[in-house]
């Protein structure tokens, strides 16, 4: 059998291809570095911040950046806030909150969305109609509004926020997954799987799912960014994370009244959010281009 075979492409060389292409794009590289910094700060917050973000002292409230407390000789590189807390520490711990919320919410909404999308797409029928109707109803609310309304009633809370963001964000996954399943369902290898006697869920999870990861990953990466902004927005409005927890959104809402007087309360937090989200968006773009240029129309 001397037929032409295309060169062996084992999984190892695919991984190295990934990094080679990553390094080629300078913007993506810079974005990755920034993101890594943020992650590092979040994970190793105590080391990076070296201070307790909650420790307050009215004696040193609203001090400008560079302030050194005489009694303790502590440096406050970004100054202190209205309760005398170290702005820099709060910034660093705020990274934790943003990432935790961003990632957890994506995990939750992704899981729900993928599952419902798989069920709706594969089994069709009444289940499909019901799921799609629920999706439509949810989409008829602007997302922030929906999350806002629910959080308003429930009151601020970290877990509640993650739950709400997760429950409201599943639709984008659900739709894409359903569409993908519908088109793959017709493929002959799925028919072959049924002919072999494979059970439905085995087909769904082991045959169909591996073929539809690309758009899911793209949506997930952009989702993390939008969840971070949602958390910040909702916390800013007072219905996100409880005020004791250091969140970039809360920092902005507290600092808002001092615009013109104490800019260090608002500028660092805002920059943090912007750069984090920007980096994620850049990397998300890059991932999308890497996985499949045809996906451009989804976002």
């Amino acid at each position: 059998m001397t037929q032409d075979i295309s060169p062996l492409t084992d999984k190892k060389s695919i991984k190295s291809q990934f990094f080679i292409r990553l390094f080629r794009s300078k913007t993506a590289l810079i974005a990755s570095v920034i993101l890594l910094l943020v992650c590092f700060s979040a994970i190793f917050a105590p080391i990076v911040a070296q201070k307790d973000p909650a420790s307050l002292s009215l004696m040193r409230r609203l001090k400008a950046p560079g302030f050194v407390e005489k009694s303790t000789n502590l440096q406050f590189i970004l100054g202190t806030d209205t309760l005398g807390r170290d702005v820099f520490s709060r910034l660093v711990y705020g990274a934790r909150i943003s990432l935790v919320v961003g990632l957890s919410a994506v995990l939750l909404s992704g899981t729900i969305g993928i599952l419902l999308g798989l069920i709706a797409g594969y089994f069709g029928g009444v289940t499909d109609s019901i799921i799609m109707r629920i999706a439509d109803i949810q989409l008829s609310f602007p997302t922030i509004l929906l999350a806002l309304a629910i959080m308003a009633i429930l009151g601020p809370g970290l877990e509640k926020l993650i739950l709400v963001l997760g429950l409201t964000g599943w639709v984008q996954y659900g739709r894409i997954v359903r569409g993908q399943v519908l088109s793959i369902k017709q493929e002959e290898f799925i028919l072959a799987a049924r002919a072999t006697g494979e059970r439905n869920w085995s087909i769904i999870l082991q045959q169909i799912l591996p073929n539809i990861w690309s758009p899911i990953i793209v949506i997930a990466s952009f989702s993390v960014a939008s969840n971070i902004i949602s958390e910040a927005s909702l916390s800013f409005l007072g219905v996100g994370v409880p005020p004791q927890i250091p969140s970039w959104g809360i920092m902005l809402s507290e600092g808002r009244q001092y615009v013109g007087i104490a800019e260090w309360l608002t500028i660092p937090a805002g920059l943090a959010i912007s750069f984090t989200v920007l980096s994620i968006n850049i990397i998300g773009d890059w991932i999308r281009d890497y996985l499949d240029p045809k996906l451009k129309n989804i976002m």
Partner: protein
Amino acid sequence: MQYLIKRLLQTIIVVIGVSIFAFGMTFLTGDPTEVILGDGADRMSVEEINEFRVKMGFDKPWYVQYFDFTWKALNGDFGYSFIRHKPAYEVITERLPATIQLAAVALVISTVISIPLGVISATKPHTLIDFIVTMIALVGQSVPSFWLGIIMILIFGVYLKWLPISGSGSWQQLIMPGITLAAFSLARNMRLTRSSMLDFFQKDFVRTARSKGISENRVVYIHVLRNSLLPIVTAIGLQMGYLLGGSIITETIFGWPGVGREIISAINSHDIFVVQAGVMMLALIFTFVNLIVDFVYAWVDPRIHY
């Protein structure tokens, strides 16, 4: 025609869903009485709380309450605002024009700036202009709108003192909120216009047009832009949702007297009926705008027939 009917039916189902949600909002913690009374409940005796409950009709079974709710809603009765001492419906409707004004201005700013810039960027890809535009777009999509608002207040309001930082009435007061609200959509539309047009440039019919000797300008504007407008129009329609949601934040920052700001202050003062009415109003507007956008889309695109 069938498509329109389908869409209408869908809208009706959605409206019902919205009403169920708005109604169900008060039940999220189990007892609507608690939600309304909030902290005040601590100061009341059990009898007073129960009295209140009966007075408000919360002791009745839920389906009766839902029926009451819908019936009253259809008559424009959304309950009473304890804070403003007016029917909730009035509280919302008198602030609606302000929100719509803001959203409309934002929509115009967004569209008017994003499409030309997107076109320029698409016609001169990979040049400096393109790079700048793309960067602005990326940044616009990443910067949280409320921070943008704060920064603008800082720069234009406090430092430069060019623009007023709150209130409404004059066109100067519209500028900053308008831009803040428009920022995200603007950025998104720019990128969408650019990528949509670039896609079309690849298509065969453009090559044909060019080889026929049609001037580049004509190719760009008539052939490519017209076609790429369709996905852009859809996107703009979809952005109404974002604008309505974003107005809440923008209005809060700039003290713009619209529905959004009212909802926030109602949340903070536990004025539950106002929150309910406001949420429902915004959702309904959004739903109908979507319906209209879909119809326009179906009318414009000859290929759609469901």
